[in-house]
């Protein structure tokens, strides 16, 4: 039940003035902008280090990319090398590098696969063929993966806490603007953009979502 006093207008002297209201608006606006642009990305992504700090440059100096990242006989792409493949050279230490020591102690001796964190891992609903791109379209690894072959250290891996996928899929820029750092940015629109440019078509759904 309403009382009479409820319907009476609040006297003007008891009301907040226009600029006070505007200040509150600004506080809300700025606080949300700060939390949205700075706090949110830090909350959304967790940061992890790779189990072994791998030096690509040192390896590339002695062998090709395809020595470790090769195509299998059936045309499928092997991705990161398995322990057996690493062991073919690193059964015993080849240098004094502490990471190599760690690799041999913790993985080779224990016969345990290295749980590499894959920067460009796509969800299982995506079919991607390396053969079609590298062999068919003659593309270089760096076009999508950046100049990782020249790196001496593995960068940190950021994982989306909600989806469980790498930050490289969305890209480091929250607005997905500018050139992708590290060659990262592997969302569907990124595929489509390149396909449109190179082939004249964004492609059909079933090409990637079987």
């Amino acid at each position: 039940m309403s009382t009479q006093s409820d319907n009476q207008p609040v006297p003007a002297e008891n009301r907040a003035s226009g600029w006070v209201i505007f200040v509150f608006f600004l506080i809300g606006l700025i606080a949300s902008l700060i939390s949205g642009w700075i706090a949110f990305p830090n909350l959304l992504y967790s940061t992890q280090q790779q189990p072994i700090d791998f030096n690509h440059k040192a390896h590339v100096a002695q062998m090709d990319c395809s020595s470790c990242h090769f195509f299998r006989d059936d045309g499928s792409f092997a991705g990161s090398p398995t322990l057996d493949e690493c062991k073919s050279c690193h059964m015993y230490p080849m240098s004094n590098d502490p990471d190599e020591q760690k690799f041999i102690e913790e993985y080779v001796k224990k016969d345990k696969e290295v749980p590499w964190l894959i920067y460009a891992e796509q969800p299982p609903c995506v079919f991607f063929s390396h053969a079609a791109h590298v062999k068919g379209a003659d593309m270089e690894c760096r076009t999508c993966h950046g100049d990782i072959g020249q790196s001496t250290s593995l960068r940190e891996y950021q994982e989306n806490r909600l989806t469980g996928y790498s930050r490289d899929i969305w890209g480091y820029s929250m607005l997905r603007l500018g050139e992708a750092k590290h060659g990262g940015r592997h969302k569907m629109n990124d595929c489509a953009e390149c396909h449109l440019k190179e082939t004249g078509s964004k492609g059909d759904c079933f090409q990637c979502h079987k």
Partner: protein
Amino acid sequence: MKIDRRCFLSLVIGGAVGTTLTPVPWKLTDDIAIWTQNWPWTPSPEKGPSVYKKSVCTLCNGGCGINVRTVKGQAKKIEGQADYPVNRGSLCPMGISATQHLYGPSRIQSPMKRTGERGQGKWEKISWAEAISTVSEKLAELRSRKKPHTVACIAESDRGTVPYLLQRFLTAYGSPNFIRTPSSFDAQEQALYLTQGRHGTIGYDLENAGFILSFGSALMDAWGTAGQMLSASADFKQKNKLIQVEPRLSDTAALASQWVAAKPGTEAALALGLAHVIVRDNLYNKEFVDNYAFGFEDWEDENGTVHQGCKSLLKQYPPKKVAGITGIDKGTIESLARKFARAKRPVAICGRGSGMVPGGLDEALAVFALNALVGNINQPGGVTAIPEPDYWPEMQRDKTASNGMQQPRVDGAESDRFPNTRYLLNRVPEAINSAKGESPIQALLVAGGNPLYTMADTETAKKAFDKIPFIASFSTYMDETAQYADILLPNHHFLERFEDVPTPAGTPTRVIGLTRPVVEPRHDTRHIGDTLINIAGSLGGFIENAFPWENYEAFLKQTLTKQWDSLEKQGYWVDPEFMPPAWEKAFQTPSGKYEFYPSQRSKASGKDADALPGFRQVELPGDPEKMPLTLMPYASARIAGGAVANPPFMTKTVDTDVIKDGAVFVEINPQTAKKHGLSEGDAAVLKTPAGKARVRIHLFEGLMPGLVAMPAGLGHTAFSDYIAGKGANVNALLTDVTDPGSGLNAGWGIRASLVKA
């Protein structure tokens, strides 16, 4: 400075405006979409190098060679094995989607015993030790009561080591009741025995045949070995060598160079009409008929009685009369007969639909007579008897077992009435339901097949099963029959087990394929061979002695020692010595010749006409006044009509005018539809003497007026929620129509009414 409610609202509005200017809503929307499409608890296939493993599919009796792509021990894809002598690389959709059955929820995951009513679906998990002791105790109890012959075993095949072990077990135990599930090959194998004197698998050399006359065989829809027919289909089409006799424009008829729409059930009359023209015009192979055949001309027996031969009998089937019976134009019959007789290497084949639709013995004998007339027995492109495996070890049995084995079979097979019929599962329900006192089957072992789905008139079969006090199922899946059992002893999935697959019906070479484990067993299941060895061990005595092997694998390797190298390396073994025997040595009949007059065939009335192939109109059950239409099942390569149901992948390939929103469509001719006031898409009730089903109407000009065609293989009620409840089971609407000469089910259809719902 006053702060009031409006300040708070302003703060919220500022926050909302600010938030829309940040990535938060857009990024979170995207992430939620990805998160919901990739639930962490949904298993996804392993990644890694592919390893191909050869095996043989046993989902039906076709036995196609497969090559399974596995990654880290998971089966990912099934392909046809390119060099396998049966299917040569082709594979049906069922075989391709078998991984869904391997990983799907239809599997029985451990031994279980029933806790609720039969069929209620209440189970309690038990140990293997308890499961084996429960079965052995029941069997031991029946044996101690001198009733071993009241145990029956149903299997889908009677060839190969697993069916052999089942038969060996029953023999050692003392029961003659090993029963193979029915198919159209029952009639063909019996016809083979009656005409050639050989027990074996029938082989049709369709690859080398120059002209194929198919009496309703759904070559494109899983007849024989589906993969084999798919491989051959291009050849059929290119060489215009297939003629299809069928009342429905099936996929096979569509592929044929000529479609002959004979009235259903009159195939035998047509075959005899064609034979009439071939004999009348002297187009038959005289070398074969004169020298290697018996009973073509009239003949005199040792008592001086003159018997009618095939030639005299054929006089009763002049084209004009046959035209009246079959509805096919007289000229077409004449020209078809001449085409058949003059073609190079012609062959006539029979077995309606995929082979699941039954047929009487006369039909098979009539079609065989056509083949014999053109002399294509044991010739390239002809018909051959593939001998049954004969590599079994000896055994001894005790007196109880011997006495039990001398009891008559429950199904009436091999009795005085049906002496040449080996199995009659279709007669089992009647034998149980009409028995006075206790059921003649006290314990039933279901070691293959899914009788409560595949048998005609499933309700009556269920009533019979109700009277069997003890039912054990060895099924891999929770199928309709397993659901009705008392105890479950699940076999491994075929991708998890060893098994040999001897020559499938229809294949013209002698071959053994090896089914072998492609993945580790996923559940607490056990190979049926091992389970049998365990049960035999627990029964003890002679039965245990008959099973001296450590396990099934040891038995398999010992049995197939000679073939093992080839089996292991290639996945199959082809008998290098097998050649269809020459005519002078081919026939083991009493006359030593091919018998146009099958002297071994039982003659109920003592008349020659009973022995000779003839056309006897099958009286379909039902009152033609009340049920003016005729229902017939049809086969589809995209719907598995056998024991194992369609996996969901396969059902997705079925058109929306076959099944939609859980309702099955029946086909009728537009003329029939008009007469009955039905139109496309209408919901209707289909009624037969066996039962009724809710269906929808699909008008199809390719079906003869007066018929209702319904796909076989839908309407499962078991397996899983993803499989059950789609359409209706046509078998539940059919009934058994006993073929007087053989006891086989000759009921290819049934009378029906269709009323708009």
